[in-house]
C-alpha cells in the first residue's frame, strides 16, 4: 500500500512538472530568452576562438586557414622560466587573497554583529563597503601617492611612530605582494561582510535562546551556533572564489606593478596582456588563457563536490 501511494504521488508530480513546463510558464521562459541569446552570443560563440591556442594564428587567414601546431604553445609555456614564474606568482597572490578575503570579512561580520548601536553599525557597514565601488585605475593613483617613500602618508606615520627608514612599498619585492593582498582585502571586504551579516541575521533566534538557557556565554554562542549556521554560506563564498584562483586581479596589478617588482608581482593576466596585446602573439596568449580557464574549471568542480560531500551543501 505504502509504496503504491508513493508511486502515485510521484507520477502526479511528474505530470504536474510536465504541464508546468509546457503551458503555465512559457512566458517566463520567453523572458529568459534574451538573456540566453546574449549569453550564447557573447559567452559561447567566442569560445570557438580557443582553436587559436592550437594554431599559428594569422589574422588575415582566420581560424579556418591558419596552420595547426598542436600543443606547441603549451610546451612553450612551461619551457621558459618567465612563464613558470608568473604562474607561481599568480598562485601565491590569489591563495593569499582567497584566505584573507574569507577570514577578514567573517571576523568583521561577527564583530559588527555584536554592536548594538544600530546607527554605528550601519555607518561602519557603509564605509567599509564604499571602496568596492572605486576602480583600480583611480585607486592605483591614490595608493601610489599614499605609499610613496617620499612624503606618502603611510611612510610619514611609520617614520614618526617607529623611527624607521621609509619603505618603498611598491618597488620592493618583499613588500609588493603584501601591499597587493592588503589593498585588495581593504577594497573588497565590505561586500563579503554584508553577505555574512545577512547570513547571521537569518539564523533562528530560538537557537540562541536555547543556548542562553543552557548557560552559554557570547563566545560559546558564536562558536557553537553562529559559525556552524554560517557554514553553508562560507562554503559558497569559498567555492566561488576558488574559481578565481588564477585571477590574481588584473586591474589591480596592472595599475600597481612596475619593473622593480616583476619578480614577485607579474601575474598570468598581465603577462598575457603584454604578450598578446602588446606583442601580437595571439595564439600563445590564448593558450595561456585557456590553460588558466581549465585549471579554474577543475577547481570549481572540485570545490562543488567537496562542499556537497562534506557539508552536504549544493551550491547550484
Amino acid at each position: 500500500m505504502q509504496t503504491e501511494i508513493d508511486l502515485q504521488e510521484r507520477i502526479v508530480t511528474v505530470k504536474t512538472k510536465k504541464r508546468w513546463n509546457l503551458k503555465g510558464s512559457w512566458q517566463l521562459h520567453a523572458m529568459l530568452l534574451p538573456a540566453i541569446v546574449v549569453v550564447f552570443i557573447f559567452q559561447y560563440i567566442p569560445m570557438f576562438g580557443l582553436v587559436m591556442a592550437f594554431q599559428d594564428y594569422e589574422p588575415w587567414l582566420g581560424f579556418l586557414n591558419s596552420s595547426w601546431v598542436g600543443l606547441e604553445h603549451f610546451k612553450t609555456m612551461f619551457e621558459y622560466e618567465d612563464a613558470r614564474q608568473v604562474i607561481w606568482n599568480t598562485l601565491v597572490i590569489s591563495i593569499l587573497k582567497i584566505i584573507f578575503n574569507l577570514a577578514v570579512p567573517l571576523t568583521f561580520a561577527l564583530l559588527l554583529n555584536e554592536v548594538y548601536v544600530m546607527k554605528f553599525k550601519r555607518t561602519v557597514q557603509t564605509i567599509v563597503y564604499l571602496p568596492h565601488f572605486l576602480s583600480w585605475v583611480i585607486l592605483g593613483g591614490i595608493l601610489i601617492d599614499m605609499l610613496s617613500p617620499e612624503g606618502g602618508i603611510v611612510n610619514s606615520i611609520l617614520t614618526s611612530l617607529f623611527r624607521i627608514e621609509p619603505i618603498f612599498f611598491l618597488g620592493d619585492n618583499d613588500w609588493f605582494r603584501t601591499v597587493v593582498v592588503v589593498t585588495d582585502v581593504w577594497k573588497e571586504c565590505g561586500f563579503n561582510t554584508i553577505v555574512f551579516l545577512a547570513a547571521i541575521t537569518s539564523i533562528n533566534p530560538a537557537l540562541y535562546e536555547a543556548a542562553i538557557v543552557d548557560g552559554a556565554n557570547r563566545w560559546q554562542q558564536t562558536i557553537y551556533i553562529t559559525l556552524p549556521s554560517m557554514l553553508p554560506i562560507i562554503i559558497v563564498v569559498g567555492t566561488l572564489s576558488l574559481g578565481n584562483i588564477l585571477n590574481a586581479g588584473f586591474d589591480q596589478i596592472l595599475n600597481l606593478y612596475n619593473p622593480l617588482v616583476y619578480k614577485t608581482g607579474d601575474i598570468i593576466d598581465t603577462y598575457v596582456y603584454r604578450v598578446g596585446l602588446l606583442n601580437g602573439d595571439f595564439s600563445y596568449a590564448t593558450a595561456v588563457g585557456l590553460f588558466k580557464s581549465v585549471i579554474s574549471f577543475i577547481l570549481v568542480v572540485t570545490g562543488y563536490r567537496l562542499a556537497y560531500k562534506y557539508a552536504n551543501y549544493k551550491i547550484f
Partner: protein
Amino acid sequence: MKMIGGRKLFKKLLASMTGMIMAIGMLAGCTDKEPTSSNSTSQSKDGNQLVTITTARTLKDDTKFRQGEDVNNNPVTRWAEKELGIKLKTLWTAPNDEQYYNKIRLALSSGQELPDVFMVSDGLLINDLIRSGKVMSVDKAIEQYASPRLKEIFNKFPEAFYPATVDGNRYGIPRFSGGNGSDSLLWIRKDWLDKLGLQPPKTIEDLEKIMDAFVNQDPDGNGKKDTIGLTLASKNGLATWLADGSFVFGAYGNYVPSSWSKGEDGSLVYGSVQPSIKKGLAKLREWYEKGYLDKEIGILDEQTAIKSFVAGKSGIIAAPPWGAGWPIADAIKNNPGAIVEPYPLPSGSDGKIGRRGEGLTVGMFLFNKNFKHMDKFFEYWDAIYSYIFNDSRYFKYGLFEGYDYVMKDGQPVYDPNQIPRGKIDPGKYFLTTDIPTVPYMLYNLAEELYTTKRKPKNAYEYTKIVSQGEPYMKAATIVNQQNQYRIENEFSGPPTKTMQKRGEFLTKMERETFANIIYGRVPLSEFDNFVEKWEGSGGQEITKEVNEWYRSVKGEK
C-alpha cells in the same frame, strides 16, 4: 478570483515587456547598417562628377565641432566637395587608437570591406593588412598622380615608407611626424642656478655639479633637503618622449636603450645591449645613490615623473620644445618666482652628445585595393599640404574663416577672443587628423623666425610657432641646432617572429635589470649577464631578423 485577476495582469505585463524587448532589438539592428558605397560617383549640383572617398578615423576629445556639425559635415568636407569635387565620408569613428585598431582588425578577420583610405600606426596591423592582400601598392599611384612637391618630400624621406614596405613594394603613404618634434633638450630652473651662482651645463660633469648643488644647497630655500636634481621617467624605458633619459646614454656612445640604430658595420644593432649603455647606467646608479634622482624613479612613467618638476622639487627635466606649454608652464604657475629656461644637451667626457630621435612617421595611410580614385586622393593631399607651403589658393589667411581666424578691416585676426563662438582648430577635420607636417620643417621655420626676428608670413607660421611664445621658439631652435646628435630607431617594421615569441621576456628582463642596477640592488656587472642572456634567449635571432627586414625595405637582397 483575485488570483486570476493578478495573473491576467501579469500576463499583460509580460506581453508588453516582451514586445518592448523585441522593439529595442530591432532598433539596435537597424541603426548602423548603411550601404558602404565605395568608389561611387554621383552628380553634384553644378553637374560635376563628385567622387566619394570613404574613410574611418579616431575621433579624440581634442577634436571639437561647432554646434550642428560633425565628422561628415564641417568646413573641411564642404570645402572638399565644393573645391575639389570630393565627397569625404567617414564610415565610422573610434574614440581611441585601441578601439580603432580593434575595429580594423575585426573588419580584416571577418572579411568586411575596408574603408577606401585609413591610417594605421601599429606595425603588426599594417603588416597583417598588407599580407591579407586587401590593401594596394601605391608605387604606381605616386608615380602617376602625386604632385612634384609631394614627390620631392617622399624622395627626401624614403625611410618613412619602410613601415609599409613589403618585398620592395610600398603600400602606404606616410603621415609624417614633425621629424624632431618630440626630441628633447634640457629645461633648467634658471632662478635656482642664479641663486646658487651656477652657470648652465656644457658637459655631464657640469650637470653633476649643478645637480649636487640643487640637492644639497637648498635651492628652494625652505630649509629642508627635499629637492632633487633631475626628473626622469623609467617605467616605460629610459629613452622616451617626456622626462627623457636618453641624453645620459648619448653622452657615452651612439646608442640609446630600446632602439635599433646603425652599428659600426652599418647593420642595425640593439641599443640596450651596447657597452656604452653600461656607462650610462653606471652614471644613473651613481646619481640615484647621491640623491640626484627621484627615489621612486622605478615606478614613474612620463606623466607621473613630471610631478616633481611641476611641484618645484626638481631643478632639471629633459623635455621637447612643446614642453613649454606642458609641463613647464605648470611648473612656473605653481612656483611663484620660478624661471625655467631651455638649454642644449650636455656632452660626455669626450665631447659626445646624443639623444633619442623621434621616428619620421606617426602612421601610414593604407588604401583599399578596390579604391579607384588615387588621383583625387593626391589632389586632396596636395591641397591640404598647400596650407603649410604658403602658396595656397584655398588657405590664404588661415584654414577656415570663423574657425581659426576672422577678417577684421581686411586683415586676418587669430586672437581666440575675437572669433565669435571661440576658436576651433579645423585642421583636426582633415584626413590627417591634424594639420599635415613635413619632417624638420616646423623647427626649421621656428629657428628662422627666432634668429632673424622676421614677421610671420602666413597663418601657419603665426599659429604654430609665433603664438606659442618665446620659450618654445628658443627651445625649438636649440633642438634644431642639435639635430646631428639624433639617434633614431631605424627599425620601423612589424615585430619579427622571434620578437613575438621572446620579445616580451627580453623587454621584461631589460626593464628589470636596468631598474635594479640603478637602485643598486645588483652589481653593475649584472649588465654583462643581461647582455649574455639577451643574446642567448632570442636576441641574436631578432638581430638577424631585424637586419633581414632592413635589407629588404632598402631594396637590397
